């Protein structure tokens, strides 16, 4: 009897549309056909319009079938022919996965293992270059690791795009016996799931990245602050942590180097503002997530008053490859001051939603049209909101921008975390503007007046405009209020929530 090696994603989105059911049906049909299937649950390839998908090993590489409707028993059971062979005549047969255009068109650098390996298998992680980065870091001195990160041009992927090397250098330079590495895995922005996909699909990569950061900065304790909305990510991370401890990849003597690094997962509690770094630190200290005044910077006085490196998941997981292959390998990708790769996350009303890792400099239009394939409804694209709920609504007229932090900023937009939410022409942009203010009012930490009160008043003024009450006067008032929030807020929640509103007023004037 031949054994087929099959792979099905266990990521939350794949499971949300039936991956578990498809896995069960595959096993059942194998039994019926007298074949045996060795099934590995992997992370997702990020091609969500093809999920649930099954991949099989062949001599030529992995071939895929998808999407498979979990309600269609026949469709799943005929993936394997009665002879126990792969049925290449099957309507969902996709051929070699590497040749699926949306996959071939990417540059999988940081996400190269996701969808390929069993996320919890340390052996598979190692077989695919895992822990080679940390190994090299342990043979270097701290300054050289920091320089490697700085020279790669890596900028924070959590939103603000601050150069990671500079932050690291600051923490490394502090003379303190206790320092911390904190991973911001709050991923609160709508349209983003890159952090989740890594945590569910390649958790050892995050552990390795944080350990490298710890070695570079001289920090012995790390925390991963994960949003409570991601229960599966939390479970998988905790399992991977336990394995890493068992193999002395964490703890008192990491890889027999004599260096210590401990790591703990902390569950957040459903507050968007706790993605803001100082609010996150307050939350980790067990307090209300009120934003702190800066300075002092967290790099100097962070968690429990100690020097703290706080970075986004994608920033941290970029480090092992940078150290393993050298700064130049990363710097060679990208354009201008945006180096390396961006994990674009396409979501909302889009035909082919998913995660696509591409070098900076790729045109926005290519992303939306070639990868995304237009809207799910088949209607014209009206706007794309980029960079989460604080990001502007970008009209199709601006789709010629390249993915480049500065090019976006020049058009009043931002790349942020790389999330893009597509809307078709039926979207009510006035309603979207209202939601921005409402969301800010719900999620404001309450520390400063422009945000706390302004967002509530902003929602009311938009309601008045939408009811047709003294529209011209209220439009002027709304702009004034937006400017007050932008200029007077302590953090970017109140400071940027007006951006989507203003972009609606500028680009979709008749709707608000």
């Amino acid at each position, binding site marked *: 009897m031949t054994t087929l090696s099959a792979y099905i994603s266990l990521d*939350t*989105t794949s*499971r*949300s*549309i039936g991956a578990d059911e498809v896995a069960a049906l595959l096993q059942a049909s194998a039994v019926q056909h007298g074949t045996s299937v060795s099934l590995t649950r992997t992370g997702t390839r990020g091609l*969500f319009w093809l*999920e649930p998908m099954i991949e099989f090993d062949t001599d030529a590489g992995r071939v895929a079938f998808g999407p498979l409707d979990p309600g269609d028993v026949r469709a799943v059971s005929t993936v394997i022919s009665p002879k126990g062979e792969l049925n290449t005549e099957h309507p969902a047969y996709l051929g070699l996965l590497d040749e699926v255009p949306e996959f071939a068109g990417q540059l999988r650098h940081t996400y190269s293992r996701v969808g390929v390996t069993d996320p919890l298998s340390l052996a598979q992680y190692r077989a695919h270059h895992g822990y080679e980065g940390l190994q090299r870091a342990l043979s270097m001195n701290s300054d050289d690791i920091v320089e490697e990160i700085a020279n790669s041009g890596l900028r924070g992927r959590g939103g603000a795009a601050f150069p990671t090397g500079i932050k690291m250098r600051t923490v490394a330079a502090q003379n303190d016996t206790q320092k911390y590495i904190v991973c911001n895995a709050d*991923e*609160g*922005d*709508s*349209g*983003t*799931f890159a952090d*989740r996909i890594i945590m569910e699909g390649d958790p050892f990569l995050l552990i390795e990245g944080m350990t490298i950061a710890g070695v570079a900065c001289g920090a012995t304790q790390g925390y991963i602050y994960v949003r*409570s*909305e*991601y*229960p*599966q990510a939390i479970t998988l991370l905790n399992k991977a942590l336990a394995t890493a401890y068992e193999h002395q990849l964490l703890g008192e003597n990491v890889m027999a180097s004599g260096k210590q690094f401990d790591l703990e997962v*902390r*569950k*957040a*509690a*459903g*507050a*968007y503002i706790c993605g803001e770094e100082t609010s996150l630190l307050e*939350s*980790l*200290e*067990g*307090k*209300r*997530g009120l934003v702190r005044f800066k300075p002092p910077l967290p790099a100097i006085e962070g968690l*429990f008053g100690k020097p703290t490196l706080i970075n986004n998941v994608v920033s941290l997981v970029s480090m092992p490859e940078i150290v393993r292959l050298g700064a130049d390998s990363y710097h060679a990708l990208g354009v201008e001051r945006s180096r390396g790769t961006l994990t674009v*996350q*396409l*979501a*909302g*009303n*889009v035909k082919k*939603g*998913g*995660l696509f890792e591409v070098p900076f400099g790729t045109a926005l239009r290519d992303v939306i049209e070639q990868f995304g394939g237009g809207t*799910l*409804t088949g209607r014209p694209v009206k706007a794309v*909101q980029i960079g989460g*709920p604080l990001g502007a609504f970008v009209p199709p007229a601006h789709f010629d921008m390249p993915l480049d932090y500065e090019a976006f900023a020049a058009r009043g937009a931002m790349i942020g975390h790389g*999330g893009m*939410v*597509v*809307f*078709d022409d039926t*979207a009510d942009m006035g*309603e*979207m503007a209202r*939601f921005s203010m409402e*969301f800010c009012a*719900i*999620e404001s930490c309450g520390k400063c007046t422009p945000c706390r009160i302004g967002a509530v008043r902003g929602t009311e003024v938009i309601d008045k405009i939408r009811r047709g009450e003294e529209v011209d006067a209220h439009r002027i008032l709304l702009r004034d209020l937006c400017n007050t929030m932008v200029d007077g807020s302590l953090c970017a929640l109140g400071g940027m929530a007006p951006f989507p509103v203003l972009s609606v007023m500028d680009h979709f004037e008749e709707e608000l």
Partner: protein
Amino acid sequence: MTPEQIKQRTAIIVESMQFLPGGLLPILHRLQDQLGYVPEESVPVVAKALNLSRAEVHGVISFYHHFRRTPPGRRTLFVCRSEACQSVGGRALEQHAKERLGIDWHETTTDGSVTLEPIYCLGNCACAPAVMLDEQVVGRVTSGRLDALIDDLSATD
């Protein structure tokens, strides 16, 4: 559970976790995981052990959307209200959920089976609209699929 029993349960949890740096959130999570909510009776016990005022503990509980102060229904249905879900009919789905269950946000059906909660993004945005039933995320939810999900709940209750 009687108030006395709640206090005892709380004391056991607190004892095992009180020396965790910044341990208040993990303690509240453990309480809610075990009891379904953070009871009023737990507050003084937690406050005393962590050397905080009751007001401080209350302040933390009320700041975070995740913590509840009353027991939920047997299952909790979270419906995503964020932008990606809105772009494919999330607003209509919210409305449908409320009408079908006959309750508003944060409320529990009279038979105690379902509590309805808003949530702001489940990271399932590429297969929106999305809901989460306890910890199980469901994607591409139509009003028909939501009805079937709710019917299943009543059937298994």
